[in-house]
């Protein structure tokens, strides 16, 4: 479904992504793990069109989307839950969710998906008229995820959904990610919380200072000594 070939990205003189390649197949959960500053967020921002690549290719279902605008990429079925949630803090929960469906015109379908999101995140249903800025961190994470689902994505990108959340909430969020995947959405999950991510992922890539240094199935990497040492605390 998604294929990245030899992607290079620079911030001025900083070479943030040094020719990375990765693949996400239809229906998979793939995780990209790595330490802070490795380049995970930059990878997702480049995939979604917020950051221009210096060279390399991004293919979605075989189509080269490297030069497309962020808007066109959303139209093609890509959706992202950005790092730090980035909900629209001055707007209500409902308005945030409606913005997730910004490019859609099918009112009936939007309504249906709104109910789907409320089913999946009952806490959002109770707070639909509440201003997003007043939600707790966990609720904001759920809102960001619900908002991303409102575009009916084929592939969903999540950037550190566990960041700053209590362990119980993290477990809840990961359960929901699994469910979203089961209902047919392909997922690329970026995480620093490697142990949790490896548990739910079909495959995983490990990133270090702008390069992908390891890849394999979730289980393989969870067993790997290097990974245990570097990311799983022993």
């Amino acid at each position, binding site marked *: 479904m998604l294929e990245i070939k030899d992607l290079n990205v620079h911030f001025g003189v900083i070479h943030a992504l040094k020719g990375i390649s990765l693949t996400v197949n239809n229906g998979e959960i793939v995780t990209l793990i790595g330490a802070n500053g490795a380049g995970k967020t930059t990878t997702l921002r480049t995939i*979604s*069109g*917020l950051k221009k690549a210096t060279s390399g290719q991004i293919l979605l279902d075989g189509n080269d989307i490297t030069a497309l*605008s*962020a*808007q066109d990429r*959303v*139209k093609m079925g890509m*959706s*992202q839950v*950005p790092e730090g949630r*980035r*909900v*629209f*803090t*001055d*707007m209500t929960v409902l*308005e945030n969710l*409606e*913005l*997730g469906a*910004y*490019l859609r015109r099918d009112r009936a379908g939007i309504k249906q998906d709104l109910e789907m999101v409320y089913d999946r995140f009952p806490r959002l249903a109770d707070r639909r008229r509440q201003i997003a800025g007043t939600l707790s961190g966990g609720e904001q994470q759920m809102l960001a995820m619900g*908002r*991303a689902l409102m*575009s009916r994505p084929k592939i969903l990108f999540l950037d550190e959904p566990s960041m700053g959340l209590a362990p119980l909430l993290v477990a809840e969020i990961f359960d929901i990610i699994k469910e979203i995947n089961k209902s047919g959405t392909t997922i690329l999950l970026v995480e620093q919380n490697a142990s949790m991510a490896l548990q739910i992922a079909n495959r995983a890539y490990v990133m270090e200072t702008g390069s992908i240094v390891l890849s394999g199935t979730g289980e393989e990497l969870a067993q790997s000594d290097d990974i245990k040492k570097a990311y799983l605390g022993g």
Partner: protein
Amino acid sequence: MEQFMQQVINGLSLGSIYALIALGYTMVYGIIKLINFAHCDVYMIGAYVGYACMTFLHLGLIPSLCISMLACMILGVVIEKVAYKPLRNATRIAALITAIGVSYLLEYGMMYFVKADVRTYPPLEGILSQSFHIGGVTLKAMQILIVAVTVVLMILLQIIVKKTRIGKAMRATSQDQDAAELMGINVNTTISFTFALGSALAGAAGILVGVYYNSIDPLMGFLPGLKAFVAAVFGGIGVIPGAMIGGYFIGIVETFVSGYGSSMYKDAIVFAILIIVLIVKPSGLLGKATREKV
């Protein structure tokens, strides 16, 4: 009491003008964090377009108002595309200096084309030239018209911003541009639209001032522009209702100072208010105390 009511009426019509201009400053600041110094010159151009429509084309006030708003809308969009868009990722100070440059270009460009002389709008006719006397208070038809036009425009603006798709895109973009892009919002279109709205309001203010005060010149935008900017800061820059309240507040303060004190001090008082606001509540009346995003 009569004197008081009279000042309130005068203050409301002046405040309407400031509010209309202030809205453009505040919306543009809200979305691209730029103080658009050229905004006050868009207002001036609006006054000239209205003048041309009424003097040479002999159009009525309302058709002239519409043409003036449309012309300013186009001008605002062109200014953004040509001068500010290329600097979207440059430092803020570069954009600010460019805005000052655009302001001078419009002022002295106009001076070249229409000369520096003050021009007078054709005298009002019919109902618009009337005044009504209620008790000891004089209410000019033009004052009613200014306030009415302003209120109608503000209501329209609120509907656009709150209810329409593009309005929601505007609010989303001004809160978080990256997140807005991730929703599939076209940020360029949204910014253009914001300039179009703000500039149209400035155009309306320009022609209303031309008709009401009767004289216009290429540098007429400077002082009202500055005061409208103070109004926007007073209300909380980036906050639309703040600009409305700020505009009326500054208008009323100004007429009261000239009415009861001396008109010599009115400008000084307005800027004193700005300084006090910046000290007491830097984010303005309705502004949120936000941290600078990094």
